[in-house]
């Protein structure tokens, strides 16, 4: 297995095409949960976990079920693709439920710490976004391993973005932000600068 290619995929999605700063995924939790570093980091971990599993499961469903069933029963491997979006979102919702139940049973403190954020991960566009991006890209569609690395890297990139933002916002609490910009305003402006910084990663594929 070409390890270099996998590293390329990982860095590509975690840094160059960062889900938050370059692809605009996961903005709602990014704005909502980035107030404190420990919460942000926890959210980042949960998202990475759910994203990786969902990415792998949706890939397996498309290639292991939809394509062969379509080919065998209907003569056209792409016939059942119209059900993809419905299936993807159902899978993600179920994964989140499972993660919730698992945490509740085995890591109860973490579960209470997350509170309402866990179910909110379902509507986190980053998770569905990762599954869709894998599905839309010829390279990842062909390789489960690369898709898994992509999903994992995407989650890490998100975790990185949200944690950095939380660090900055904790400092901002002691500054004088104009009233109109408090909350979303200043967060977005900070994100602008961070996005500019992350642009610097472009070309790392070389």
């Amino acid at each position: 297995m070409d390890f270099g290619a996998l590293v390329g995929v990982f860095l590509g999605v975690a840094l160059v095409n960062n889900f938050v700063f370059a692809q605009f995924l996961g903005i709602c939790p990014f704005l909502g949960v980035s107030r404190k570093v420990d919460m942000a980091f926890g959210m980042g971990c949960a998202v990475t976990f759910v994203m990786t599993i969902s990415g792998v499961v949706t890939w397996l469903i498309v290639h292991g079920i939809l394509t062969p069933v379509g080919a065998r029963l209907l003569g056209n491997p792409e016939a059942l693709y119209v059900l993809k979006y419905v299936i993807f979102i159902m899978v993600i919702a179920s994964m989140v439920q499972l993660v919730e139940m698992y945490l509740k049973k085995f890591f109860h403190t973490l579960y209470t710490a997350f509170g309402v954020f866990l179910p909110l991960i379902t509507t986190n566009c980053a998770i569905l976004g990762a599954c869709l991006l894998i599905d839309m890209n010829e390279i990842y569609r062909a390789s489960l391993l690369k898709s898994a690395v992509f999903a994992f890297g995407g989650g890490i990139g998100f975790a990185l973005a949200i944690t950095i933002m939380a660090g900055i916002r904790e400092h901002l609490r002691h500054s004088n932000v104009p009233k109109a910009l408090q909350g979303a305003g200043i967060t977005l402006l900070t994100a602008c600068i961070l996005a500019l910084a992350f642009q610097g990663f472009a070309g790392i594929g070389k």
Partner: protein
Amino acid sequence: MKKFIDESWLVLVLGAVFAVLLAGAQTSFSTRIRTNQQRALNEAIGEVVPGTQRSEVVPIEGYPRDVFKCQDADGRLTGWAIDAVGLGFADKIRLVIGLSPDAETITGIKVIDNVETPGLGNKIAGEGEDAWANQFRGLKATGRVVRVKQKARPENNEIQAITGATISSDAVTRTVNEAIERVRSKLPTP
């Protein structure tokens, strides 16, 4: 069992109704969508191999993408078109390369998919009289195309990079060279 049905009958009914709806939408739109997907490629082939009215895929051993044999309305060979993909500055670049019937000369290239930096890298896809890609017309396919910077008059098989977008220019040049190298010797003799 009754409780299950009691709670979820609506979900099952809706599921069935929606499945039918989706199947209907799929059948109505699929032909149009397929035509759309082909259109960009067909238009590009028409541009890089002048005079082409028809094209058919010819399988080339060891090359995973499509290579087209291009003919005019009377069936005469107008040239060859190669669908090539390479890694650019930002992400993949997809382009079509046109070769003359004897596969000795490049008749043109067209970038059909790219996400390079707007205003800089994406000039590789620019159109019109002074499009950057026009430089490739007439170059020799028998040797490598070479990218140079700030040379007053590029000569034999050299092309000028876009100022401020060397990496994108390099990506296109490299993709063109690699594709031609892999395909040219394996083209069927007309």
